[in-house]
């Protein structure tokens, strides 16, 4: 432990003290400060509007399988936020993901077709056969998570990650296994284009980008939430393909 490290340690401890000190400040009336843990001001928080699923009109109670035609019909409130209220944000995020994947491909382009050290010398029997059973299950589970994203915990990102995991396992298990990049491309492009075209249709039909132009249906039905599940499916596909691509690139590098 040399001097450098001690200095860094001291500085960081000081920084930590200062950060933690911020949580101890008791706000005066009208002042904005950090909450005490679990002491959120429920009445005044923005999230309440999202929970009520009515940002613009008066608050009504939302009841399971009964309330109809809410602003956002998804039972999972987080999904409402991600795919409806903040859908544009999500579009940007997907773009970041896309750019990262593209950048990675660009960086690792030269070595794309060379043999990789990461892949096992010999295929492991257990892995190989385990994957055979696990792979469709993982795909199924991922698809479920994506499709039921607006009703239950989970969503497109999680589901996409699960699907990508399935492909990761597949890649790990076998030397011969090669992903068909054309199919990946097609899926990715289709997903991205549909996301944007849904948004554009909203612009055309309702006058604003990514508007929920479909009927939102009854809360907690499968077919509910208007465009939310559709967008979620496109995002899910895109994330799955993107992550698979990243994994593929890194494995081949």
């Amino acid at each position, binding site marked *: 432990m040399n001097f450098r490290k001690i200095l860094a340690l001291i500085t960081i401890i000081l920084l930590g003290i200062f950060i933690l000190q911020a949580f101890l400040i008791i706000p005066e009336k009208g002042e904005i400060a950090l909450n005490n843990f679990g002491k959120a001001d429920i009445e005044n928080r923005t999230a309440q509007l999202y929970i009520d699923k009515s940002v613009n009109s008066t608050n009504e109670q939302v009841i399971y399988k009964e309330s109809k035609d809410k602003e956002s019909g998804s039972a999972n409130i987080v999904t409402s936020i991600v795919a409806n209220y903040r859908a544009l944000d*999500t579009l940007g995020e997907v773009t970041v993901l896309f750019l990262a*994947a593209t950048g990675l491909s660009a960086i*690792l382009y030269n070595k794309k077709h060379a043999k990789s050290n990461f892949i096992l010398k010999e295929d492991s029997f257990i892995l190989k056969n385990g994957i055979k059973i696990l792979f469709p299950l993982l795909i199924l589970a991922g698809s479920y998570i994506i499709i039921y994203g607006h009703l239950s915990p989970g969503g497109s990102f999680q589901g996409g990650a699960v699907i990508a995991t399935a492909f990761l396992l597949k890649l790990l298990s076998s030397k011969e296994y090669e992903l068909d990049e054309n199919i990946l491309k097609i899926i990715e492009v289709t997903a991205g284009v549909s996301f944007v075209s849904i948004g554009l249709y909203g612009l055309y039909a309702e006058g604003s980008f990514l508007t929920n132009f479909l009927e939102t249906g009854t809360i907690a039905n499968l077919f509910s939430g208007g465009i939310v599940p559709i967008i979620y499916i496109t995002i899910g596909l895109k994330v799955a393909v993107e992550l698979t691509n990243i994994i593929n690139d890194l494995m081949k590098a």
Partner: protein
Amino acid sequence: MIDFLEKWSFFGGSVLLILIGLYGVITRKNLIKIFIGLSLMDTGINVLLVSLGYVEGGIAPIITSTINNNSYNFVDPIPQALVLTSIVIGVAVLALGLGVIIKIYEKYNTLDISEIRGLRW
């Protein structure tokens, strides 16, 4: 004591994660370790954000058959949505960074940043 731990395990723990990550970033020489530090900071920040939205005795913000209306004590969904985004971006950045590290390793045959002249200016 339990009360204190409950209160501080989230804020304090997440800040601790950030600080550990920061310490790693500042002191480690190995690029991979630096990235691990970054990743730790990322996680710490995510945890901190989510715990800021916690409501005492709150439940997940999903309307289900048991929690069948919105008058329950839901936790704040906005940080959760944000963190969802943040995690994905974190993954993307991490992957990109690892790609760069691979390239650096190919060029300099080392991961020690003090020996990589291209990283000094």
